């Protein structure tokens, strides 16, 4: 049938990876680095990630305007 992908397996696997590995909410991303029992650094990558995603979304919406 036209439009059906004949060999679906690589497509489906690539889509699985693109979806589950690269999308979805990120919650974990905070790591505490300590020396012995003394906490020294709290690194929160999700803050940077969220900031990047927010900028991307703002740019996308600006580019597309009201025409969605």
């Amino acid at each position, binding site marked *: 049938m036209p439009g059906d992908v004949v060999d679906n397996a690589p497509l489906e696997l690539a889509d699985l990876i693109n979806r589950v590995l690269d999308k979805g909410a990120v919650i974990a991303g905070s790591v505490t*680095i300590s020396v012995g029992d003394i906490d020294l650094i709290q690194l929160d990558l999700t803050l940077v*990630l969220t900031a990047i995603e927010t900028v991307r979304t703002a740019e996308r919406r600006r580019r597309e305007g009201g025409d969605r």
Partner: protein
Amino acid sequence: MPEDHEPAFDVDESLRNDLATQLAAVARALPDRINADPERVEQGLARLVLTLIEVVRKVLEHQAVRRMDGGDLSAEEVERLGLTLLRLDERMQQMKGAFGLTDEDLQIDLGPLGRLR
């Protein structure tokens, strides 16, 4: 055909895409706590450091291609730039090997076949 064919892929946006993807990979690769006590070197810290290097390396590669495509580099400059990045790539593979970390542990850029266990 979309009328307004402004550069569809603003390099800054794709750079941000790269950064977002790579940072999520870092997040994925991290334990909650890392003890940096030199008495007990943990893979956790090595994992963090190597993953952050990979983030920067991927961005460097992207920018290098952009400069080359932009046409403002001489042939010698392109070769020198490419060689540096090629060596960086090779060095990173060695580092990962030395710490027993695979690409899957760090930066995830999996081709759909042959790279997943």
